[in-house]
């Protein structure tokens, strides 16, 4: 059990799905991104997913690529992500980090896990690291009780679904459609399929990410998943100008969504 699973279970006990909000640290600048993460918490996110900047985000669509590039131009450092973890924890949500592998490797797998715990973080989502590729990471995370959150996709084979769900802690991050982060018109059946496959492989908690951008979609997904992960729609609402009120309204829409399903 971890702070993350406790929070997901508490949401379930309330008869709803959790809302997980993603923002990259440093966009549009470090201070505004920290303020934006506090807005996520105030407006109803249960878990905040913090993205340290990375120069080559292959699993991200144009909006998040733009945000990451702008953050790096502004001089954001990986250290700032740990500052954000602290800020989110203080604001009362559960902080997790979504990091590309090289950022973790350069800090050192073990050091990354230790720094996360010291800042009050619960887990790490690894978009370009599968459990079989990184036994060193899994070992380092277990030693610090950091949740290892791996992704599954519609293309995931049954064998790999089992492997990935077994290695995941906290939750399994299921992507309903093939492709990079971004907003999609329709998700329903595909999302339900990948959640059932993950559950059949033994996953206790499954959250859906990639493509979710509206309250209606969140409501639909909250009907069968433990959490709804929203990134691009929040980044877009925040925008280059750092519009916290626009962000607050978007988060409230999604927070209503996850509460209106059951």
């Amino acid at each position, binding site marked *: 059990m971890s702070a993350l699973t406790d929070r997901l279970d508490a949401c379930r006990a309330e008869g709803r799905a959790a809302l997980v909000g993603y923002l990259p640290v440093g966009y549009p600048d470090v201070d505004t991104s920290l303020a934006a993460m506090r807005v996520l918490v105030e407006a109803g996110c249960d878990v905040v997913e913090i993205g340290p*900047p*990375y*120069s*080559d*985000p*292959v*699993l991200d*669509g*144009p909006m998040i*690529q733009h945000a990451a*590039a702008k953050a*790096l131009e502004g001089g954001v*450092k*990986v250290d700032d992500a740990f500052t954000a973890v602290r800020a989110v924890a203080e604001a009362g949500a559960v902080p997790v980090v979504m990091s590309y*592998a*090289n*950022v*973790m*490797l*350069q*800090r050192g797998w073990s050091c990354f896990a230790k720094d996360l715990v010291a800042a009050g973080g619960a887990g790490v989502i690894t*978009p*370009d*690291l*599968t459990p079989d*590729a*990184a036994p060193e990471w899994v070992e380092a995370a277990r030693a610090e009780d950091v949740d290892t959150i*791996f*992704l*599954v*996709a*519609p*293309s*995931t*084979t049954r064998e*790999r679904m089992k492997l*990935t769900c077994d290695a995941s802690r906290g939750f399994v991050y299921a*992507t309903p459609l*093939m*492709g*990079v982060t971004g907003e999609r018109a329709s998700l329903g059946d595909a999302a339900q399929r990948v959640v059932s496959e993950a559950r059949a492989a033994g996953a206790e908690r499954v959250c859906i990410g990639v493509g979710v951008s509206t309250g209606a979609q969140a409501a639909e997904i909250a009907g069968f998943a433990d959490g709804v992960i929203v990134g691009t729609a929040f980044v877009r609402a925040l925008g280059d100008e750092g519009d916290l009120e626009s962000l607050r309204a978007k988060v409230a829409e999604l927070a209503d969504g996850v509460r209106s399903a059951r």
Partner: protein
Amino acid sequence: MTDSLQAAPGPYFGEFGGRFVPEALMAALDELTDAYEKARIDPEFTGELDRLARDYTGRPSILTEIPRFAAHAGGARIFLKREDLNHTGSHKINNVLGQALLTKRLGKTRVIAETGAGQHGVATATAAALMDLECVIYMGEEDTERQALNVARMRLLGAEVIPVATGTRTLRDAINEAFRDWVTNVETTNYVFGTAAGPHPFPAMVRDFQRVISVEAREQMLALGGLPDAVLACVGGGSNAIGSFDAFLDDEGVRLIGCEAAGDGVDTGRHAATLTGGRPGILHGSMSYILQDEDGQTQPSHSISAGLDYPGVGPEHTWLSSIGRAEYWPVTDSEAMDAFRLLTRTEGILPAIESAHALAGAIRLGRELGPGATLLVTLSGRGDKDVEQAARWFDMLPEGDA
């Protein structure tokens, strides 16, 4: 003699290589690995690849001795392995025909590829035309500007060329964009990767398809009287170099030298000499050396040669460097361009600027070793695509045109 170093299977070469990709691509990479493992021992596949090499590419490629050039390189004997004479003008066709045949075996109908200088894009577009595959090429916007002729060639061949405007607008960003396409369209699409880098099985598979360079060259050198003292090739991602080295790996007396692009000089920070100036990290699906800052952000690379302008390098090169079997030398823009002009003026052979880096390495080594030495240099491509850029470098364009 311990075990052979040749044809190392991957996924790891020492501690380098592996497969660091989104889960969404794992099934496709497994499927590709499987198909390749079967194909490489299937006489039908290898026979068809050999036939295409002979009847389409024009293999075996010849060796040319270049005495007038060598007179400026300490008087060593120098031979060129003429990959520039291949159909489409570079070594890239060797790999592409193999991967396009595999695409057909997988039952996929669409190929995507990244390209830097445009040579791999042209080769892929060519194979797609030949084998009736839909073809999309990702190319950094900066590269589409400096290699406009190759963009037109790809379009003439029926490929769609998508300029990539993100990041540094070069090869590295083209690879990112190709991966994003692949994640989205993996069901119908095969990624024809252009160099001996990326996730397993690409480093080993691309090396195998390029190995023909050293297999032929080794026999040709033996027929001429003996093995060379050294083999030199340019290294960006490193496909022509690994293909040039592989059959010589167990010949302990043969030095293997990869020439990296040092741009304005390694100490200026404006370079692409990954093994000289980088350190271990994960980029584009494998563990190797990369140019990066202390946080792990990939650093922009710089080279006059679009094909070498890449902040990573194939994992097998990093391994060969770590065990001391191969050496990697930095060669600056201006050294490469001097060698470019020298070969053109003394031998009437216009090299690709990429390949000119290997020629510059040969000048340096020839002067060090003197007249007794024999050097084999892979001329990975021809310089037709580089005429405008070279003319600008040497200030040869008409007034007002430069």
